[in-house]
């Protein structure tokens, strides 16, 4: 599903990633770990086509990432950056945003589906009408994670989904990700500092 081969990435003269290879099969969870500044987020951004790599290849679902294929590749991915807040009036609007894109028009979003997804993540349905700024960062992270699940894409790319969560919530996120991979066949690539979340991973890339 995801094949990163001999990837190198530099910012000017500073090489942040050197000869990285990492493969994930369909339904596998892959974790990326390492110290701050070692290039974890850069690797995820390279997979999304947001960073240019100097060497190597990235393949998603058998399609090699280039300027010509990036649009179709992004249509196969659900992406969650770190600590994102969208200027939506309500959480429901924030959740709905990616479903308004042409590429996702076929995807179904209902309050009932959202409620079921939130049950996995320990979120109350009453949050739907709240402002995104009235909930905690941790709640917002779980809400955005549920959007990734609901989009039903074959690959989910997540940057630090539990950076603002306590142990109990992290456990819920781990259980949710495991459900996505085993029941829905979703492949997941995520950056994480959390030991308990790393234990959920089928493969871990240590940078």
């Amino acid at each position, binding site marked *: 599903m995801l094949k990163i081969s001999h990837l190198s990435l530099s910012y000017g003269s500073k090489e942040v990633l050197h000869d990285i290879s990492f493969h994930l099969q369909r339904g596998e969870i892959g974790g990326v770990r390492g110290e701050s500044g070692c290039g974890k987020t850069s690797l995820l*951004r390279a997979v*999304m*086509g*947001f960073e*240019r790599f100097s060497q190597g290849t990235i393949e998603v679902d058998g399609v090699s990432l280039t*300027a*010509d294929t*990036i*649009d179709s590749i*992004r*249509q196969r*991915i*659900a*992406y*969650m*950056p*770190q600590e*994102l807040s*969208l*200027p939506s009036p309500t959480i429901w609007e924030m959740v709905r*945003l*990616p479903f*308004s*894109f*042409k*590429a*996702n028009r076929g995807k179904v979003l209902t309050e009932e589906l959202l409620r079921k997804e939130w049950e996995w993540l320990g979120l109350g349905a009453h949050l739907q009408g709240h402002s995104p700024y009235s909930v905690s960062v941790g709640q917002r992270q779980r809400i955005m994670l549920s959007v990734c699940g609901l*989009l039903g894409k074959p690959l989910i*790319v997540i940057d630090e989904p539990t950076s603002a969560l306590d142990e109990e919530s992290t456990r819920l996120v781990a259980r949710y990700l495991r459900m996505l991979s085993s029941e829905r066949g979703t492949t997941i690539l995520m950056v994480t500092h959390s030991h308990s979340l790393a234990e959920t991973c089928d493969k871990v890339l240590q940078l």
Partner: protein
Amino acid sequence: MEQTLDISILGLIIGLLLMAIPLYFFRKYKTGLVRSTIVATLRMIVQLVLIGLYLKYLFQYDLWYVNLLWGIIMCVVATVTCVQRTNIKRSILMVPVAVGFFTTALFISIYFLALVLRLHESMNINLSLNLLFSARYFIPIFGLLLGNMLGVNVLALTTYYEGIQRERQMYDYMLGNGATRAEATAPFLSAAIHKSFIPCIANMMVMGIVALPGTMIGQILGGSDPNIAIKYQMMIVVITFVASIISLMATVSLANRRSFDRYGRLIEVFGK
């Protein structure tokens, strides 16, 4: 119609003396605006005198291609001013703004002169290039449109690009979840349109009650019937409003091709 009341040199000097009041406050509160205000006032005087002399000849000869050439020069100056004020790279914005300004101002000017003012019917002559590009009508309308488009475009373009740069995570989130480039930039364009058109709409709301617009006042002081001046003012507001949004859409759509790479990433747009 009454004769236009002229302002004497002495009258102009007395009028200019009023500028001492803002200069006094600018100095008292150490705003750093004294020098630039004096320079701007002197530049305005010199430029208007020179343009006055030039327009006198332009009106006297009244050749359509010379008038159109003058329109192009006005457009070039407006484009350079717009690009300078936005602080966006010339290589990105110069051509889109020039094309957006020129095509919009030309289209709206011709629309107004031929279909609204119906110059040919009023003068009982055939519609021709000489009539459409006559100095008396074409140059003031063209200039008026450029002036308004300039203000709106500067504010909107700055808001648009600053927004994408500041909210890069949001832009990436949308692209990363399947949005097309047009879908991912839409919220930023919406914010830019909102910010740049709010003053125009607010001004329209109070027009005639709080704000008495310059064109109308100028016409009335120049001896026109107030009813005619009102009709002109109405049309002026409409065409400047319409021209502002058309030019902005044209500029943004052309500039987008130069400001994003093939992966949809915003390139470094600010700078020389």
